[in-house]
């Protein structure tokens, strides 16, 4: 943190660069060579002949459909989170009732529940509700398991709003609804973007719930598509890795253009 260079840290960071860089290098190059080239030349050298065919094959083999399903799940999860979490956090921070305190404790408890632990009963409930193999059956549990972290983060952000501002609005006789719209929401923008980032990443990269709650091609999400590709055509490494690149492309674009928001968002998740 001081002015002079820190050689030890520099050396360490170079090793990490190598560790992160190597698989990404293999990943990217593998997608740009033919299958035969990958098996004969190995993953490290440059391709004898560059090609984009792997991507085109993936796109014509249903990747677009998986992509749309993932997009639907992600958008819906973010919408649910944005719909229920801000009012909840507002109530936790401002309500006086004992019931709200219990709700907050419930969500704190929820932080410790791993999604893995509930896959059997979730399968039971979703099947009973007739939602098995429907996207909504994936959306609901995914959103529910985002709630504890999102609530914690947003509550933290809303606690930073000073009481004087509430009193000023009360002087004008503002209702809770107006306070919420005109004071709380605008002043917790940082927290709101944190929970959007968190929920979107969870939904986009979610694997466990789709794995156990869907089975048809028409409801397949990207992560499940990758897994099936791996188990069924694992030998086609260039095709498989192209699907990996396509799957991370949207997040990468967001990362390139809104890295600060994304990183700050995740930092907010950890910091609370």
């Amino acid at each position, binding site marked *: 943190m001081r002015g002079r260079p820190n050689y030890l840290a520099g050396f*360490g960071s170079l090793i990490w660069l190598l560790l992160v860089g190597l698989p990404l290098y293999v990943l990217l190059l593998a997608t740009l060579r033919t299958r035969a080239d990958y098996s004969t030349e190995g993953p490290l050298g440059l391709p004898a002949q560059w090609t984009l065919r792997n991507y085109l094959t993936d796109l014509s083999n249903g990747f677009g459909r998986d992509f749309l399903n993932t997009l639907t799940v992600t958008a819906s999860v973010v919408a649910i989170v944005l719909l229920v979490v801000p009012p909840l956090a507002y109530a936790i921070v401002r*309500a006086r009732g004992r019931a709200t305190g219990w709700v907050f404790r419930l969500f704190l408890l929820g932080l410790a529940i791993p999604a893995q632990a509930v896959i059997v009963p979730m399968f039971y409930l979703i099947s009973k509700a007739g939602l098995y193999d429907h996207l909504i059956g994936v959306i609901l549990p995914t959103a529910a398991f985002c709630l504890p972290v999102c609530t914690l983060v947003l509550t933290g952000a809303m606690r930073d709003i000073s009481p004087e501002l509430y009193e000023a609005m009360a002087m004008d006789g503002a209702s*809770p609804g107006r306070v919420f719209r005109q004071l709380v929401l605008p002043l917790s923008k940082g927290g709101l973007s944190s929970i959007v980032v968190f929920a979107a990443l969870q939904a986009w990269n979610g694997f466990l719930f789709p794995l156990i709650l869907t089975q048809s091609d028409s409801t397949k999400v990207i992560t499940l598509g990758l897994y099936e590709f791996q188990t069924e055509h694992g030998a086609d490494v260039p095709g498989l*890795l192209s699907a990996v690149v396509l799957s991370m492309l949207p997040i990468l674009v967001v990362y390139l253009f809104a890295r600060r928001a994304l990183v700050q968002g995740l930092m907010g998740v*950890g910091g609370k």
Partner: protein
Amino acid sequence: MTRAPKSAAGVARPGFAWAAPAAVFFLLFAMAPLVLVAVLSFANWDGITEPHFNGLDNWVALIHDPVMSQSVWTTLLLTALGVLTQTPVSLLLGVWAAGHQRNRAVLSAVYFVPLLLSATAVSVVWRAVLDPNFGVPAQLTWLFGDGNLLGSRSGALAVLTFVGVWQFTPLHALIYQGGARAIPQVLYQAAAVDGAGTVRQFIHITLPQLRNTVITSMVLMVVGGLTTFDTVLILTQGGPGTDTTVSAFYMYQKGFKSYDFGAASAIALVLVVVATLVSLAVVKFSGYDRMRGTAEGL
């Protein structure tokens, strides 16, 4: 929404109705399944016909199942290895990234890329990279020998630990970066005046100041480690043999492969109890519950 109760100062406060939608939703899709998993652990269910109670049968079978006890030890071992490897790497990387130098900002952008990949993608990529016949080991035989890293118990555990570091370090580094940025610069300036170098500043200022952050991050690592699933499913399928069959994977196999959902529920319950106990132990052992805030010790 309900009418607002007025407090003494006349400030309108939100009623319970504001919290209700989220609470109901969460009860339905997270708490109800948790209760149901306990109920199902005392039942026999094949996933098709209706479940029926069979008392303690699942539990008795589980206690006598050598794979189950092995899976618990493997899970604990992998969790410990994960915490021991990820903590130092992410701590150093996070503190390093907290510096405001321009090159650090640029490099950090690359370093955090694994954060964007799903666990599925990470596992798929590493499986291809480490493939003994067509992956990197086949090309670098001087480094990897016969290259069949996943063929032995120790090799498979090492690979899972390593992929864990690769996958989770960025998130924890980010948490540490946030923590390190919150340390008052005055402390460093004072130490520099006293002639303390970078290493001593790190040991005597950064580490003690990051105490709470270390605990937050460790609890996340422990819970994440105990519930390891995706990487095992894709990289090792629990093998060789049952050498890397962690509990979460064993539960999945029992339920969704052998259609013995009662046994799977019992394993799930063990998982929840162990995860809760270990997290509580970390918090207790570290004295986190007695701490009052990050400003303590200033």
